[in-house]
């Protein structure tokens, strides 16, 4: 299920939230003399609804999620039980990490690995996962894909979350979660299960045990959720239509202006789609009493690429820093090792976004830019006027998106050439039409991507607190009405981060 659907918004959400609000955290069931059974009612509800939410989109692979959760939970309990035996603890960690990485390797990367092997060695090896699928189909007639391996929704997110638990437990940063319901509810927490933010166990450990829900938090959550819904349905979907059209064109024929308008549309689409989804997740978390970490902070206002990645998909950056970059030695082992570590982290960041060379190159592209900034260019950027360093960073991101979304490296190259006029003309009637019929949406997107809007709201809140407070419910209802009118006939409502 996705948040931006009528099914979620009008049926799943109100039913789940109303039950949730009126349930206590724990129910004590007295069992005769002095003993009582404590049912973690809210966690149980989160587990059940999370299962339903996930199975709605992935009725088969939901099993994989539960198996992986069970293994990580058991690894955690064993680590705790054999607290003094470092060898057992290490084995538990290795089992958990290998299992999670293994799931990714099988379901996300196996096609890519075998495609690469086959093209390098000019061989025709069939992906064993496909062979297994065929066998299963022969016996059970499940109709599994026999062509490409289907990517289970959200697998890149929940495996990373689970790993954060076992790794942190191994490093003794957190306490063990003894309740299976508690741990499973952390993984299946529906606001973040399919597209993040990547909530580390550490972030919510205390809230899994005990959390408070009140009118103030729910209202804050509703406001945040509505903001995210508006970003996704009103901005991302509407500007995304432009990129869908341009993306399908023949890049050797399009004018430079068309190419720029197209990739700018994608630049905004992916930002509003993903940050909108994160806002909705954070808002839903608030309604349930959780405080999820921030995932986006006006990334297009950054003054360097390094800063951009501290403000874009923050939780992913944090994850790679905590669990890859720092364990590799970070920047404390000399320049050569630092550079190596940066390239590893950025290659992996790229690969995390999808199993294709475009993504690897996209990641390494950022790795190289960040290295250049680190060895001196960053100092120069600081001295440049703000507008110049911001323009540089924004352009770097735009070029990045070409690599990211043009499917093959050959097409990316064609597109780059088109951006510099290889398609012949600078601006043709197609470009003029795109601009003239969409000028409003571009303007709104630019405005909404800057800090200007937020600052204006803050100013308003400070000066006219009373009016501001009453404007919130009015804005929420407006957004709800507008988004509903778009969702009722959603001919275009993609969800970009489903493939990650």
């Amino acid at each position, binding site marked *: *299920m996705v948040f931006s*659907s*009528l*099914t979620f*918004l*009008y*049926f799943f*959400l*109100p039913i789940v*939230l*109303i039950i949730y*609000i*009126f349930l206590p955290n724990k129910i004590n069931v007295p069992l005769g003399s002095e003993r009582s059974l404590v049912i973690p009612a809210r966690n149980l509800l989160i587990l059940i609804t999370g299962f339903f939410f996930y199975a*709605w*989109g992935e*009725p*088969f692979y939901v099993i994989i999620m539960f198996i992986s959760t069970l293994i990580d939970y058991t690894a955690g309990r064993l680590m705790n039980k054999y607290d003094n035996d470092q060898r057992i603890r290490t084995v538990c960690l290795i089992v958990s990490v290998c299992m999670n990485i293994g799931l990714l390797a099988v379901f996300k990367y196996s096609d890519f690995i075998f495609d690469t092997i086959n093209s390098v060695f000019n061989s025709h090896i069939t992906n064993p996962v496909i062979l297994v699928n065929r066998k299963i189909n022969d016996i059970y007639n*499940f*109709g599994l894909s026999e062509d490409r391996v289907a990517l289970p929704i959200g697998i890149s997110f929940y495996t990373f979350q689970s790993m954060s638990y076992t790794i942190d437990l191994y490093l003794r940063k957190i306490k063990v979660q003894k309740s299976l319901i508690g741990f499973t509810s952390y993984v299946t927490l529906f606001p973040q299960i399919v597209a993040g933010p990547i909530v580390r166990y550490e972030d919510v450990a205390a809230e899994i045990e005990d959390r408070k*829900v*009140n*009118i*103030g938090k*729910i*209202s*804050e959550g*509703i*406001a945040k959720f*509505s903001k995210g819904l508006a970003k996704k349905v009103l901005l991302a979907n509407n500007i995304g239509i432009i990129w869908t059209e341009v993306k399908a064109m023949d890049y050797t024929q399009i004018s430079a202006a068309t190419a720029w308008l197209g990739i700018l549309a994608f630049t905004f689409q992916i930002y509003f789609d993903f940050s909108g989804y994160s806002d909705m997740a954070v808002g839903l978390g608030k309604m349930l009493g959780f405080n999820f970490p921030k995932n986006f902070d006006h990334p297009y206002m950054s003054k360097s690429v390094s800063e951009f990645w501290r403000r874009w998909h923050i939780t992913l950056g944090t994850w790679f820093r905590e669990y890859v970059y720092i364990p590799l030695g970070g920047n404390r082992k000399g320049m050569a090792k630092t550079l190596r570590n940066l390239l590893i982290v950025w290659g992996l960041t790229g690969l995390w976004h999808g199993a294709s060379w475009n993504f690897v190159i996209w990641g390494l592209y950022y790795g190289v830019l960040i290295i250049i900034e680190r060895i001196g260019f960053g100092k120069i950027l600081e001295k440049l006027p703000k507008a110049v360093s911001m323009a540089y960073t924004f352009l770097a991101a735009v070029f990045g998106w070409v690599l990211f979304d043009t499917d093959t490296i050959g097409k990316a190259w064609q597109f780059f050439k088109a951006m510099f006029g290889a398609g012949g003309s600078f601006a043709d*009637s*197609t470009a*003029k*039409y795109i601009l*003239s*019929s*969409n000028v*409003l949406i571009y303007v709104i997107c630019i405005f909404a991507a800057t800090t200007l809007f937020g600052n204006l709201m803050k100013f308003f809140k400070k000066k006219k607190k009373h009016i501001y*407070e*009453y404007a*919130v*419910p009015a804005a*929420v*209802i407006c957004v*709800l*009405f*507008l988004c*509903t*009118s*778009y*969702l*009722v*006939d*959603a*001919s275009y409502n993609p969800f970009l981060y489903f493939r990650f």
Partner: protein
Amino acid sequence: MKIKKGKRINIPDLITCIAFFAVLIFMALMTVILPKQDFLEMENSYAEKFPELSAKSVYNRSYMNKMEKYISDHFAGRISWIKGRTILETSLGKNERNGIYILDDRLVEKIPEPDYSSADKAIAAINKFAKEHDVPVFAMIVPTSAEIYADELPENAPNADQKEFINYVYRGLDRSVNTIDVYQTMLSNRDDYIYYRTDHHWTTKGAYLAYAAAGKKMGYDPVPLEMFDIEHAGIDFIGTFYSKALYDGVEKDTLDFYHLPGGYPVTEVDITEHFGEEPEVYGSMYFREYLDVKDKYSAFLGSNVPIVDIRTGCEGGRLLIIKDSYAHCYAPFLTQHYSDITLADMRYINISLDKVIDTSGYDQVLILYNASSFMTDTDIRKLGY
């Protein structure tokens, strides 16, 4: 939920919570309670039925997909929501919606650049057909309203050049195929009511003009316009363009029947819906029951079927029309010149046409399509089978 004493509740927060949930719950309840329609008449499509729960439908996700479609199809106030959105967008200057351009007084289709290699296949098939059959073949590709009113489109709006396309097709056809050019006819009558404002078809008047223009090549004297009695049979007609755009800002259409007093009568209309079955026999080309529903254009010869055969009291030749639905309001005029008119729709004929119809029994063959459907067609090539 516990509301602690002494802790003041912020009123705006309370309003936010209540308003948010009130809207969600109200709309959800209305969606559940309100009566359901099986057919979305405005959009001219069937509504999703409530899905059946089974292990298989859950497993292959069809249950979830159907449930989402069901909720969207039956969402309370569905049409009003969509219309509201269209009004909002047009007032913000967006004159395109769901593949339809919204002009001042009409809706027209957004037609992308044609795929000429696909057209080549259709052309080759027609040429092969003409070569293999010893019967005069005529071809008429009619421009649509997007071409005739191209100057009224939003500035720089992408719009396929139908004139160029029609010329390309005509040039590609063998000299044995007689091409009938109605482009100029339509263009010079653009101020007349020749295309529906809300539908992709031409009006009966538009069809008449083409019929009159084709007479010389096909060898008949067209009946003068003033001889006809015009019946405004279908009023408040809203067509397929409307269904896509759901925009109320253009005037509704009127659908006319042209009757010729004292003309040759139609003696029999045979409609073959499914091969292998006997055709249904009717006495008229006009199916008035459609005039009371949204899909009024189907009053001409009914909905699209593989074969329609019209017999008349006229003693002229026999004509085979290979066609799209533009032919449905065109064929009635021809009843004054042919004894037998057969309409064949290649979309529903998947074997060689000769196996379905004895093509040798005809005196003329007319290939009649509008440019838009010819551009995207992949069925004419079956003529080459």
